[in-house]
């Protein structure tokens, strides 16, 4: 009888676990976790942290430079306490060779969180497998009496119609997504900076003299997750454009840095290395987050640091065919389309020497424009393609804007020189476009001030989704 009761309760729990995936709200971390699920159990390098982590450490670089399967588990406003069950889950399912944890004042604080911050923790909790640690972390942040809210099914049941049957989270065309890494090829203007400074001025000012007990305790817990499996751990702090303006932030980072170093771990505060690695304002998407251009610089430094300080056995013969940096290193050997002989006109008027097209892991394709490093300025781009009726019915609302002739047209205003990246001695501008279609027909690409310089037309691509 007792066995029957326990079995039935387990069945109910299982039903809830099953239905929970349908009741998650549409958040970027769903895509991160879904993307991880396809690859789990062969990770070598894992990165944890908040949005600072997911916009700074690009797994493409670690894959290319270190030849390691890498993944970024950063989640918006993710506290270390929230990430703890996720770390345990990842450590339990993979034989990690090294882990990186991004750490700063907000990530170690989890007491008395505001309503918004608490809600943001849910996207990580909803995408973490059930465990005792998850229950403990959840009840610490939300209180024990709200424990049933740990199940998205019970928490969001009232929105059953909107949530069940919803489409998977799709990154926008301008989002650069790769294995948990998320950012945009954009930078911020002076107005944004002014607004940001006003916001910062309203924050708490008192300079901390020591870490609170709960703060050092959560760091200890994180350490023990990796130490128990003998996984090397590096603590890092992503750069912030306002670091120099925020004394409290600086003081906190010193305390955190001193603490983790005293525990015997490497700690890199990238705010202190901005000159060394050449970080500029144009490398920031906003005052707190890097764009892919800045992420490339920090990730390259970190991968070099790991290479020099840790003896991690390389994997051999891994193919990273969706990784732009690996493709660049391999001279675009595995790209879907390759156009290298573009002629003098395109080269001189649009400063484009070659164009590569390849399929990414996030519902679409990436266009990589190789440019010379001369002073040619912004270039307009027009991409046009057709899809069959079946795909129109299935996906069009989500992915495209239809033109008069029924095709999909995407106009990219500029290939902005200040947002292009410099890698392996060449300059590249990158655009991603979402296209989860089975057949892409009559694809055309034009560039130039009037978008009249043809790169290609009448190209068909068949893909399986």
């Amino acid at each position, binding site marked *: 009888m007792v066995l029957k009761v326990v079995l*039935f309760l387990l*069945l109910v729990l299982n*039903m*809830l676990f099953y*239905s929970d995936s349908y009741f998650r709200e549409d958040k970027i971390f769903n895509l991160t976790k879904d993307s991880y699920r396809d690859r789990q159990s062969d990770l070598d390098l894992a990165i944890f942290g908040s949005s600072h982590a997911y916009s700074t450490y690009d797994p493409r670089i670690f894959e290319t430079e270190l030849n390691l399967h890498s993944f970024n588990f950063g989640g918006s406003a993710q506290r270390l306490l929230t990430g703890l069950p996720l770390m345990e889950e990842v450590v339990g399912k993979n034989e990690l060779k090294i882990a990186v944890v991004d750490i700063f004042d907000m990530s170690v604080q989890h007491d008395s969180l505001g309503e918004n911050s608490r809600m943001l923790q849910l996207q990580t909790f909803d995408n973490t497998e059930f465990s005792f640690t998850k229950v403990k972390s959840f009840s610490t942040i939300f209180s024990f009496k709200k424990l049933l809210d740990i199940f998205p099914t*019970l928490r969001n*049941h009232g929105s059953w*119609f909107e949530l069940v049957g919803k489409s998977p989270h799709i990154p926008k065309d301008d989002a650069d997504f790769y294995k948990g890494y998320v950012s945009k090829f954009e930078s911020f203007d002076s107005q944004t900076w002014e607004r940001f400074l006003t916001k910062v001025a309203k924050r708490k000012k008192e300079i901390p003299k020591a870490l609170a007990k709960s703060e050092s305790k959560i760091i200890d817990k994180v350490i023990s997750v990796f130490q128990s499996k003998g996984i090397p751990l590096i603590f890092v702090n992503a750069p912030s454009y306002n670091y120099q303006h925020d004394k409290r932030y600086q003081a906190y980072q010193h305390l955190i840095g001193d603490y983790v170093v005293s525990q015997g771990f490497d700690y890199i505060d990238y705010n202190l290395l901005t000159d060394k690695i050449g970080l500029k304002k144009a490398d920031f998407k906003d005052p707190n987050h890097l764009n892919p251009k800045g992420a490339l610089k920090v990730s390259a430094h970190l991968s070099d640091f790991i290479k020099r300080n840790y003896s991690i056995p390389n994997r051999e013969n891994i193919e990273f065919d969706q990784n732009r940096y690996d493709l660049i290193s391999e001279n675009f050997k595995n790209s879907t389309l390759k156009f290298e002989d573009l002629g003098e006109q395109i080269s001189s008027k649009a400063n484009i020497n070659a164009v590569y097209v390849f399929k990414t892991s996030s519902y679409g394709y990436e266009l990589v424009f190789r440019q010379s490093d001369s002073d040619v300025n912004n270039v307009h781009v027009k991409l046009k393609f057709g899809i069959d009726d079946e795909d129109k019915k299935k996906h069009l609302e989500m992915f495209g804007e239809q033109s008069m002739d029924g095709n999909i047209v995407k106009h990219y205003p500029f290939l902005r020189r200040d947002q292009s990246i410099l890698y392996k001695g060449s300059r590249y501008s990158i655009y991603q476009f979402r296209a989860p279609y089975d057949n892409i027909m009559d694809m055309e690409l034009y560039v130039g001030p009037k978008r009249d310089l043809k790169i290609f037309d009448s190209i068909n691509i068949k893909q399986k989704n």
Partner: protein
Amino acid sequence: MISLFVNLGFLVYFKYANFFIESFVDSFSLFGIALEISTLEIILPVGISFYTFQTLSYTIDLYRKKIEPAKDVISFFAFVSFFPQLVAGPIERASHLLPQFYIKHKFDYSLVKSGLLLMAYGLFKKMVVADRAAVYVNSVYNNVEDHNGLSYLYATVLFAFQIYCDFSGYSDIAIGASRTMGFDLMKNFDAPYFSKSLTEFWRRWHISLSTWFRDYVYIPLGGSRKGKYRTYFNLFLVFLVSGLWHGAAWTFIIWGALHGIVLVFEKAIYKSKEPFFKRLGLSNENLSNRMFFGTLTFFIVCLGWVFFRANGLDDALTVTQGIFTDISVNEIFAIENYTIGFNINEFKILMLSILLMLTFEAYYKRRSVINRLNKQSVIARWSFYLIVVMYIAIFGIYGETTTKEFIYFQF
């Protein structure tokens, strides 16, 4: 006598004092005399009408020597304050419940299982049907002037299901919870909306209250033993008192009076109805007859619910008038009438759930669903239990912002 006065005294003070004061002041104002008597600031104890009646039945049964005095004070207070049914019944009789406190109850798996199933059914009725219907009903009845005749009709029919599922859902949870502990509580509802007359309806609706009024008011008044007209009067009076029991408001009194009048009418024509039907070659069990009288009864009950639910007499009259005079066929196809307070998908779930409940109750009348379920394979049974749990978890209305009390907690 002391017990009666104390019990009724508390009930009258807490529940009716302000009503009598207001009515007293209103009566004088009719003659142009403005009395300045302020009403009392009273917090009504939850479920006072239920445990007062339960205690009264103990006192009266003891006086009539129908029961023995409680063997110990703990058993007596446990009988009065038995937590599953304390706040909204069923109103138990001492002869039935009190002896159950004298015996030791052992864990009984089959009782626990059937109790939990009954609780699940009660939760389904309360959380899925009643609280979902309440969204529509409250939107219409709390803003009567903003709606049309068809939405009044829908809101009233939905209120019929809301109040049934709310109240019988509570009873099921109370009976089920008691059963898990080995206690047997009386049946309080028996598929009342399948009744073919109002007389039958009252044999199936809030059975513990109907039988209480029958035993402690109707029969002591003479019942049907003192002639035809006295019987009619007794019947009418019982329902007037029943209306007043539900609340100190004129709408409840009108609700009680309406039921009383229809019951008197049914009683008056009962004897002449049978020969009339026979002459037409109709049988009471004839399907069309059952459907006709079933629908008529449901309609009369719904008419009563208008007064029961309305926020005041004016609203009740507006709704009644709207139902009879302000419905056009075109409105039936207007989606706006189905999306008041929620979206069309919620309405569809509500309809599906009501249909499931009615099917279940129609089936349950003929045979025991639980017995039939027990004969199925473990996979079928467990699948059924899981579906029920998940259906309630997903389609139930619950959570911090939507917590709703049971309607009968206020009585």
